[in-house]
């Protein structure tokens, strides 16, 4: 079964739908037209470029190139999750990169070797699509997890120091913050898993079904993807915190102030 291709003219017609939000925005003065326009243009251009790029990537299907592209995706994911924490990117980029790579590659290779009967574990279709799926979906969790950990630790520093004064080891003192961050990071994933199929018909499934596979196949893929997402989210949040704390916490067990970004007034207002 082949997916129905959409002729370019028809694609253009789809853009006509946007007349509705534009009309609403004008009628109620929502000032949405400009941000909407910018986002639509960006999305279209990015997807067009990536479409061409992926076409050649799939045609070429070279193991090294595939791994290389996966690493590029990891770098971008690391940047976006580190950037939204209050820690300087330069101080924790490397440990975060290591942790994201370990978490993503482990899950992807496990799935490709033991679960999906692919010919080559480096096959572009499965390596890049699965890897991208994992990264994209664990990204939000990672952003929440990493920034919560350091934000709470800093806000709560008096209590943290009090616990150290009680004679706690570093692990004992940090454990409550680690636990809280991971739980918070995982909350949306767990919630969407619990309602999956009923409330959410996720992108992966839609894609596979539109791609011509039967719903049974789509569901199997969805199940392995969700297991992969939970695994890589927990692993990467915990690993990132464990690895970055060596940089952000000194030998005295005290949070270093020089790893935090200087907050400019404008940044603060935005938060």
């Amino acid at each position: 079964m082949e997916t129905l291709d959409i002729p370019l003219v028809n694609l253009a017609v789809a853009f006509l739908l946007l007349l509705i939000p534009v009309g609403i925005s004008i009628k109620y003065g929502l000032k949405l037209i400009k941000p909407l326009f910018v986002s639509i243009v960006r999305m279209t251009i990015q997807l067009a470029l990536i479409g061409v790029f992926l076409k050649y990537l799939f045609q070429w299907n070279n193991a090294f190139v595939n791994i290389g592209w996966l690493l590029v995706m990891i770098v971008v994911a690391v940047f976006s999750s580190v950037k939204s924490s209050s820690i300087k990117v330069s101080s924790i980029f490397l440990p975060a990169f290591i942790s994201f790579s370990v978490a993503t590659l482990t899950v992807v290779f496990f799935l490709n070797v033991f679960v999906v009967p692919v010919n080559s574990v480096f096959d572009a279709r499965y390596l890049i699509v699965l890897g991208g799926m994992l990264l994209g979906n664990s990204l939000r969790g990672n952003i929440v997890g990493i920034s919560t950990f350091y934000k709470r630790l800093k806000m709560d520093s008096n209590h943290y120091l009090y616990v150290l004064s009680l004679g706690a080891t570093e692990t004992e003192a940090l454990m409550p913050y680690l636990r809280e961050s991971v739980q918070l990071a995982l909350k949306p994933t767990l919630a969407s898993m619990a309602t999956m199929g009923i409330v959410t018909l996720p992108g992966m499934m839609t894609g596979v079904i539109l791609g011509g596979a039967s719903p049974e196949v789509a569901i199997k893929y969805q199940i392995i993807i969700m297991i992969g997402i939970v695994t890589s989210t927990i692993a990467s949040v915990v690993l990132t915190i464990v690895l970055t704390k060596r940089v952000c916490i000194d030998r005295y067990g005290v949070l270093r102030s020089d790893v935090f970004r200087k907050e400019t007034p404008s940044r603060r207002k935005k938060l």
Partner: protein
Amino acid sequence: MSGTSAVIEFAGVNLSFSGKKVIDDLSLVINSGDKVVISGKSGCGKSSLLSLVLGFVKPDSGKVVFGGVAVDGKTAWNVRREIALIDQDVSLGSGSVESFLEFVSDLKVNAHLDFSPHKLMKFFHLQGILHKNLKDLSGGERQRLAIVVSVLLNRKVFFLDEVTSSLDANLKKKVADYFLKRDDWTCVIVSHDPVWLESPSVRVFDFEEKVWKH
């Protein structure tokens, strides 16, 4: 235990925060069994003095010694196990009083302790708070709970940073007597309260002039 061995020693200690000098060339010795009251105006660095010993802040220069060992990134962890601190903000955290007590007694360092708070809680008029949330306690209740915990830790050195500020006259007296009557305890007390300052058993260190008053 001899009453004259040095427990804490500051030798030419300088401390500044982002360029602003807070402690200037301080030298000070506190002996075993001493009851020392540190006095001085707000912001002059009294709490920072305690933080230096615990390794929470590091001196720009000079040496901080505890029990004959210089405080550094390695030794600070042991120093903290010898001192019972009550910080000025009484930062006990959140959650129920019971779970807080459990957290403290579950720490590895406290594994050997007989951690039963009931008698002391009664002594400091803290009956019936076990199931309350720490955030719902009054300032004075929190201070007394922190005092109870500090005693249960079974340590010999106490850092008491403004621990009587929210207590009534009766309780102030009760707390001060409790700490001052123990000859084997070394207490470093930060306070403006006459209940400590005017007690005959303390030595007062004027932190602004860097001199002993009596």
